[in-house]
C-alpha cells in the first residue's frame, strides 16, 4: 500500500474524488432543497422545483454546504487572511498542531516505555494490560473537561492539558503495537540469542528492537492521527481558546456549516500530512536497515 506507483494511481483516485464531488452536489441539492421546501411551505408560499434547484446552493444555514461553498470558505480563511489573524485557519491549525505534536511525543515515549516494561516483566503485564485496554473504553470527551479543570487547578494551563489528552489517546496504539512487535521476533532468532546466553538488554537492542520497528511505525501512524483527534477534542470543552476544535464548536454554535466543513477538511489535511511525515521517517529508517520492510 505504502509505495503506490503515482503514475498508475492518479486516475482511479481522481475519478473517485470526482464521483464523491458529484454525489456531494446531489446530496446538497436534496438536503438543502428539502429544507427550503419545508421553509416555504411553512410560510405557505408557492414553490417550484427550478426555483429550489437554483436556490439550494445558496441557503444561509445549509444542511450540507456544496463543495464550492466549502472551498470558498477554505480559500477565505486560509489564503485571504493573514496567518497571524485569529480568523486564519492556518493560525488555528498551528495551535492544534502544537498540542498534537507535544501529546504525540509524550504518548509515544510513554507507550514505548510501558511496552518494554510489559514485555520484560510478567507482573507488569498481568497487572497493567487489562487496565490499559479498559482505559481506552473511557470516553475521552467525558474526562477531557475534568483533566482541563484539574490541571488548571494545578496551574497547568495552555497547551499542556490538551497535550495530556492527546497523549492519553496516542499511547495506546503505541503500547499495543510495540508489545506485538517486541514479541514478533522470529522464534528461531530468539533461540539463537538464547544459545549465545545474551542478556535481556542485548536481546532487546540486537533483536527485539529491530523486529518491533515495522510495528512501531504502523502504530505511530495511528497514534499521530489519534493525537490530533485528542487535541481537537480537548479544544471543545475549553471552547473559546482557538484551534481547529474551537472552530468546529463555534461553527456548530452559530450554525456555520461551511465553517465546520472547512475545519474538518483542514483537520484531515493536517492528519494526512502528519501521517505522511511518519511515513517518510519509516522509509528512511528501513532503508538504513537494508530496505526490507518485514523482518
Amino acid at each position, binding site marked *: 500500500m505504502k509505495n503506490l506507483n503515482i503514475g498508475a494511481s492518479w486516475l482511479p483516485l481522481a*475519478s*473517485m474524488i470526482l464521483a464523491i464531488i458529484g454525489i456531494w452536489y446531489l446530496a446538497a441539492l436534496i438536503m438543502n432543497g428539502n429544507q427550503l421546501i419545508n421553509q416555504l411551505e411553512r410560510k405557505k408560499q408557492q414553490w417550484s422545483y427550478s426555483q429550489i434547484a437554483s436556490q439550494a446552493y445558496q441557503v444561509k444555514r445549509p444542511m450540507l454546504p456544496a463543495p464550492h461553498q466549502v472551498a470558498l470558505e477554505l480559500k477565505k480563511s486560509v489564503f485571504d487572511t493573514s496567518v497571524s489573524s485569529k480568523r486564519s485557519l492556518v493560525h488555528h491549525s498551528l495551535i492544534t498542531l502544537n498540542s498534537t505534536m507535544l501529546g504525540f511525543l509524550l504518548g509515544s515515549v510513554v507507550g514505548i516505555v510501558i511496552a518494554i516494561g510489559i514485555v520484560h516483566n*510478567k*507482573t507488569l503485564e498481568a497487572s497493567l494490560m487489562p487496565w490499559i485496554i479498559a482505559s481506552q*473504553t*473511557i470516553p475521552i470527551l467525558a474526562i477531557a473537561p475534568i483533566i482541563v479543570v484539574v490541571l488548571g487547578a494545578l496551574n497547568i494551563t495552555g497547551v499542556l492539558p490538551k497535550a495530556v489528552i492527546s497523549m492519553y489517546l496516542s499511547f495506546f496504539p503505541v503500547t499495543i503495537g510495540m508489545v506485538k512487535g517486541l514479541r514478533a521476533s522470529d522464534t528461531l532468532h530468539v533461540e539463537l540469542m538464547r544459545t549465545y546466553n545474551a542478556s535481556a538488554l542485548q536481546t532487546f537492542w540486537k533483536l527485539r528492537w529491530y523486529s518491533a520497528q515495522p510495528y512501531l511505525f504502523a502504530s505511530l501512524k495511528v497514534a499521530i492521527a489519534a493525537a490530533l483527534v485528542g487535541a481537537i477534542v480537548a479544544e471543545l470543552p475549553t471552547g473559546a481558546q482557538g484551534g481547529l476544535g474551537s472552530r*468546529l464548536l463555534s461553527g456548530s454554535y452559530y450554525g456555520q456549516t461551511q465553517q465546520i466543513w472547512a475545519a474538518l477538511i483542514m483537520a484531515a489535511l493536517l492528519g494526512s500530512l502528519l501521517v505522511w511525515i511518519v511515513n517518510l521517517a519509516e522509509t528512511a529508517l528501513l532503508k538504513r536497515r537494508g530496505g526490507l520492510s518485514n523482518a
Partner: protein
Amino acid sequence: MPKYVLTIIYLCLLAGQVVVVSSSEQGFYQQYPGLLILLALAAYAVTALLSQLTQLAETHPTYAAVTKVLVPSLFAFMLLLTWQSIVVGFAVSAVLLPAPSAIFYSLSNNLPMFWADFKQTYLKAVLAGYFLGCSAGFIVAQLAVKSRFLRLGLVPLGNFMSAIPIVGIAPIMVMWFGFDWQSKAAVIVVMTFFPMFINTLAGLQSTDAIHNDLMHTYAANKSQIFIKSQLPQALPFIFNALKLNSTLALIGAIVAEFFGTPIVGMGFRISTEVGRMNMDMVWATIVVAAIAGSLSYGALALLERSLLFWHPSFRGTHKR
C-alpha cells in the same frame, strides 16, 4: 525469612490501610500526615504481593488461571484504595473528584437509570453502528481486493478519511439523522468503516506467496481462494479491527451524545451530571462504559483465540 511470613506481613499492611481508610474522619491526612507512610507501605506490599503471585503462576501452572484474574484485581484494588485514601484523607471536594465508595454507592442506587442509559447508548446505537460499519468495511474491502481501480482510489481516500476527527462529524450527523440513536449509529458507522476496510484489505493481501501459488496451481476460483486461503490468513487483521472498533464505537456514541440527544444515554448522563456537579454519577457512568467496553473487547479476544489457535502468537508452549 520464609516467604509466607513476608506474605502475611504484606497482607497485614494492606489490611491496616483498609481499616485506617474506612474508619477515619474526612481529612485525616491533614491531621496526621504520618499516616501517609502506611499508604506507601501498603502500596509497596501490593507490588511485592503481585510479583509473588506471578512467580507462583510460573512455578505452578495450575494456579495460572487464578492469578490471571487475581493480579489485575489486586492491582486495581490498590489503585482504588489509594484513590479513596487521598480523597478522604485530604477531604478533596466531591465536585472535583468523588471517592470510589461514593461512585459505587450512586451506581448501585441508580441501577434502573444506568440500565436505561446503557440500553440507549450501547444496545441501540453502538451495536447497530458497529455491526453496520464493520460489515460495510469488510464488504468494500472485498471489492477493493478484486478491483485494482477501486483499491487505488479507495485506499488513499480511506487514509485521508481516517485522519478526520470524528468529533467533527458528530454535529453533522445529529443534524442529518436526528437526536435519537440513529445519528449516533451513523457516527459509529463512519468511525468503524475505515479501520475495518484498511485492515481487511491488508489482511487479504498479506497471504503467503506460496499459498497464492498453490491456489493458482489448483486453478481455484476467486471465492475458493477467498474462503480457503485469504480469509483465514486475514483473520488476525480483521480481529485487530474488530477489537479496535469495539472501543472506538463506544467512545463515538458517547461523544456524539454531547451534540444533542434525548434525555437518556450515557453521553447525556455524563455531560448533564457534570453540569449538576454530580461527579459520582459521572464516574459511575464511566465505570459502566469501561465495563461494557472491556467485556466486549474480552469477548472478541476470546473468539479470536479460539479461531486463531493455529496462529504462531496463540500456539501452545512448544513452539518452533
